Structure formats: C-alpha cells, structure tokens
C-alpha cells in the first residue's frame, strides 16, 4: 500500500549492516532499520506510524503543506549558516618569525632569536590594524602567532594599543589572544596581557619526555617542560583564573599509543579540555614526513581510545572536554552555528579568518602562509602596505576559493551523510592533492573526519544516558 507524504531533502548511508543513517541540511538525524528505509523511500511507510512521526519531527518527511515546513527549515538553515553574516572576525598577526623552540613538526621557517630580519615594522603593524578595522565584522579577535610573538613583545604591545586606539572610534567587540610556548613570559608581561584582556594560548604535547621530544628548546641546557609548568602557575597566579590559559596538543608519531598519559598530564596541570589534533601536512612536517608523520588510520584509532578514556574520566566525576568531539556534537545535537575556521562550508579561509605575516602579506589561512615559505603564493590575498581591504577580501582569488569550498556541491561531499556536520579545507586540498577541490576518496582529512563523526554517532546511537549527559555538558 502506498501512503501520501512528501519526502523532504535528506542524505543517507549505511550505518551498519542492519541500519541506515539519515541526515538533513540542518543537521537532524535518524537511524532506520534497512526494511523501514526501503518502505520509507518507496512510500510504503505508514504515515500514521510512530516511525513516520519521528521522521516528520526531524523534518525529513511531512504530510503537511510543504511551504510551512520549508519556512521552518529555512530558519534553521539560516541559523546554521549565521557564521557567514559577520565576515572575517579572526585576524592572526605574526609580529616576528623569531622563536626559541625547534619543534620537530614546525610549520614555519623560524628565525634565530638574534635574527631580526623577519620582525614586523611599526608601519606594517599600523597598516594591518587599519586593514582589520576596514572589515565589516562587529567582532574582531586579533591572535598573535609566530615564531613566538613573546620574543617581540614590544611589537605585540604596539599592535594591542594601536587596535585599542582605533577601536575607540570603531567600537567593535575587540579581543586578543597570544599563542606562545610560555617560556619567555615574565610576570610584567603577564600583568600587561591581563590588563589588556589578551588571553594566552599555549602548546602542551604531554608528559615531560614527550613534550621535550616534540618541542625542544633551541638552548639544549633549558628544560622546556619544567619552565612551562612553572610559567603556567605564574600566569594563573597573576590572573587569578585557571581558565586564562588554554593549551593545544599536536600528535607526532611519538605521541601515538600515549593518549592516556597525555590526557593525564593535561589534568595534572589543571586544564579542563584538550583538542586531540593530528599533524598537518604543511611545512617541515611534510618535508620530514617519515620522521614525525603516521598513517591517518593510526591517529583515528588513538583518537577513539582517547575519547573513550576522557568519557570514563568524566564518568568518575572530573569535568574534562575533548574539543573536536565537542565541536562536532554541537553541530549534531543543536541548531547553532559553530565558528571553527578549519571545518566550515563554505570554508572559513579568508571569510572567517585571515593571517597577516610580519612583512604585511595577507594569506587566507595560516597554512597558506606555510606554502609561501616554499615560494608558493597561491593563497596570498595581497599586502597591507600595497592593497586595500576591498582589493584583498573582495577580490577574484578569494571568490574563486570560496566558490570551490562549499561541501553542498563538492564531489564526494554533496551526497555524504555527514555533510551537515563537516566542512572544506581548500588549502589542505591544494597542498596535499594539488587543487582546492581535492579528491575525496583519497583525502585523509575526509577519512579522519568521517571516522570520528561515525564514532560519535555510534555513541549517540548506543544511548548510554551517562555518556549523553557528558556530551551535553561539553556543548553547553
């Protein structure tokens, strides 16, 4: 018997041998047994059954007027894409390429501490601030990167104060963050950062031996991990808030099999979240791939083990978040937009974030800057000393990149069941696969993201009430 109902746009795939997973453009999802799926798509599913009501509540089918459901879906869709409304808000600035570390996976051609050839000038800094405020976004976050920006702290101060001055007239929601290995921070510098509400983001790769293997200081006599631990405490003591400093980890091949120790070290040092991050293929990491890299499948297995361990820790009463899972869960479980530049559709490159190099060159993303170190300037939008904001951010190049980074119409993404939760990374596609569109069947980022979303979906489908409660606590 055929039933009268309208099937609304959805994507599907086999989730297991017994079930299909269905999702729609606004991120709603449902699991259907194979037989039910067949009935549904052939209009043989009873439109008065509980299962049909479930599908209708997810706006995957309807017996109502299509126009009414379209209005509802459009509102949700607009919310999901609201990240586009404000345009570029994350502005990464590189005051210097000097650094006192020699990380084994370093993406930047760092300069020695005494080599001032890659320091930003005040003229360039002033033009960068002007360019940033020429943008339309009501939110402006200036993130200092390097090298290690704390080496040229005078330039960091100059940019902060210039931005605060300009903002007296522009009145944007202005914030700062400095990315540093912490080792060069003094109490006076921290007091300055606190006064100017500049958050601190640092890197922690795990216990002492691992952290020092991945991120040795150039001065071999110094103990990186020991200084790090001492300075984390100093920063928190001055700030009076344990959350004033956040940390990022990078997985080298030495990190594999050690996620539990890494997570334990984060907790020991008072952090309440971690972002289990795979190595990216840019810069030195791809030059010395065999020394630090690993098959993506190994990362995925480590990620799953790490996530399980974190869930167990939460179950024992310690609130601790895995950042990538939290981001994806927010996309899966809520209608809200999430501002993660590396996984947006259209891609966040240029239109959500951009990076300003020490010489004033502007790139769509940090990884575009890495490519430029190897004389590939494909992702360079221009230079603040020569070009206007309009020329760079409304130019042909950025339009072309964005047009080719909408997962809704990319081959292999358009009909992927995980499309509503995923995004495009045209810089990575170009760097690894030769063009901004990329080739999904061999794309490691695609393999990784799909595997992780699938794993989260398994957890949601298992429905362990404690796990679900923990997931919700992560996205609040």
């Amino acid at each position: 018997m055929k039933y009268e109902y309208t099937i609304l746009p959805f994507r599907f795939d086999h989730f297991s041998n017994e079930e299909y997973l269905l999702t729609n453009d606004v991120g709603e999802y449902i699991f259907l047994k194979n037989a039910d799926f067949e009935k549904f798509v052939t209009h043989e599913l009873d439109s008065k059954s509980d299962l049909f009501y479930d599908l209708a509540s997810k706006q995957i089918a309807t017996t109502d007027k299509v126009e009414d459901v379209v209005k509802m879906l459009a509102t949700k869709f607009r919310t999901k894409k609201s990240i586009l409304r404000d345009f570029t808000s994350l502005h990464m600035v590189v005051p210097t390429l000097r650094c006192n570390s020699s990380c084994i996976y370093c993406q930047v051609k760092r300069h020695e501490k005494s080599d001032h050839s890659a320091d930003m000038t005040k003229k360039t800094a002033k033009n960068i601030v002007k360019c940033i405020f020429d943008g339309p976004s009501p939110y402006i976050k200036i993130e200092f990167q390097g090298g290690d920006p704390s080496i040229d702290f005078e330039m960091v101060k100059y940019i902060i104060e210039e931005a605060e001055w300009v903002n007296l007239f522009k009145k944007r929601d202005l914030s700062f963050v400095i990315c540093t290995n912490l080792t060069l921070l003094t109490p006076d510098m921290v007091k300055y950062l606190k006064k100017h509400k500049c958050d601190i983001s640092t890197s922690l790769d795990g216990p002492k031996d691992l952290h020092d293997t991945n991120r040795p200081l150039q001065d071999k006599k110094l103990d990186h991990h020991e200084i790090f631990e001492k300075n984390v405490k100093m920063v928190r003591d001055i700030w009076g808030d344990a959350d004033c400093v956040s940390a990022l980890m990078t997985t080298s091949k030495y990190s594999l099999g050690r996620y539990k120790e890494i997570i334990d070290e984060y907790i020991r040092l008072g952090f309440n979240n971690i972002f289990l991050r795979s190595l990216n293929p840019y810069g030195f990491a791809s030059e010395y791939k065999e020394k630090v890299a690993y098959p993506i499948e190994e990362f995925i297995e480590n990620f799953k083990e790490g996530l399980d361990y974190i869930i167990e820790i939460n179950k024992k009463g310690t609130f601790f978040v895995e950042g990538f899972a939290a981001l994806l869960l927010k996309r899966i479980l809520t209608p809200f937009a999430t501002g993660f530049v590396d996984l947006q559709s259209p891609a966040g490159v240029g239109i959500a974030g951009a990076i300003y190099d020490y010489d004033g060159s502007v790139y769509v993303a940090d990884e575009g800057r890495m490519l430029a170190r190897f004389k590939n300037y494909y992702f360079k939008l221009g230079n603040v000393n020569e070009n206007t904001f309009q020329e760079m951010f409304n130019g042909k190049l950025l339009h072309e990149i964005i047009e080719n980074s909408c997962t809704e119409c990319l081959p292999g993404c358009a009909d992927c069941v995980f499309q509503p939760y995923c995004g495009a990374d045209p810089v990575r596609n170009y760097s690894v696969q030769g063009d901004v569109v990329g080739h999904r069947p061999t794309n490691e980022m695609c393999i990784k993201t799909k595997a992780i979303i699938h794993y989260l979906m398994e957890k949601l489908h298992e429905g362990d009430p404690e796990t679900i409660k923990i997931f919700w606590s992560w996205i609040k």
Partner: protein
Amino acid sequence: MANLEFPINVIDGNKLKISFDLKLYSKEAITATCYKYTGKYYIHESCEENTVSILFESKDKSDISQTVVKEFCNNLIDQEIRHNINKDFGYIRDLIVEEAFKPVNK
C-alpha cells in the same frame, strides 16, 4: 543457484569490466558511484545504446576481487535512490535556501 553470478567480464587480474543497463540506472548515478572508486582504481566509462560499460584497473596492480564489484553494485543502488529522491524532491532544497536568504535579498 550456483550458476547465478554477477555479470563480470574479467579481462585480466587487475582489470575488469562490468556493464549496466541505462533502463535501470541513470548515467548520473553510475558516474557518482564510479567516483567513489577512483582512489584505488583507474576507471573508464563507455556507452553503447542502452548499456554503460565500466573498466576498472587497480592502481597498485593487485588483483580485483569479485567483492569489489558486488559492493559497486550495492553502492550503485544507493546512488540511484539518491538520484531519484533528488529528482523528485530536490526542488524543496532550493526553496529552503531561497527562503533562508530572503532577508538579505530584500
């Protein structure tokens, strides 16, 4: 039942050819299915009247098992369902996007 086999025309260990009837499957669904296999195989499509023939050649020169072709057949059915649903109801997605961006188009 023992004689029932998938219509595979094996040319060589690392190459094989399979044909599909265009009365059953759309060209779009066939090509979309082929795309998923382009990571491991070189693929060539040719068409004669109502038949599309697909030539697979494994990139690493390894032999192609029959399981690959059976999976291809199942994937093709999924792809055909996607194609049909999109053909019948895809216009609703256009309506949603149009409605969603109405405020900025005013």
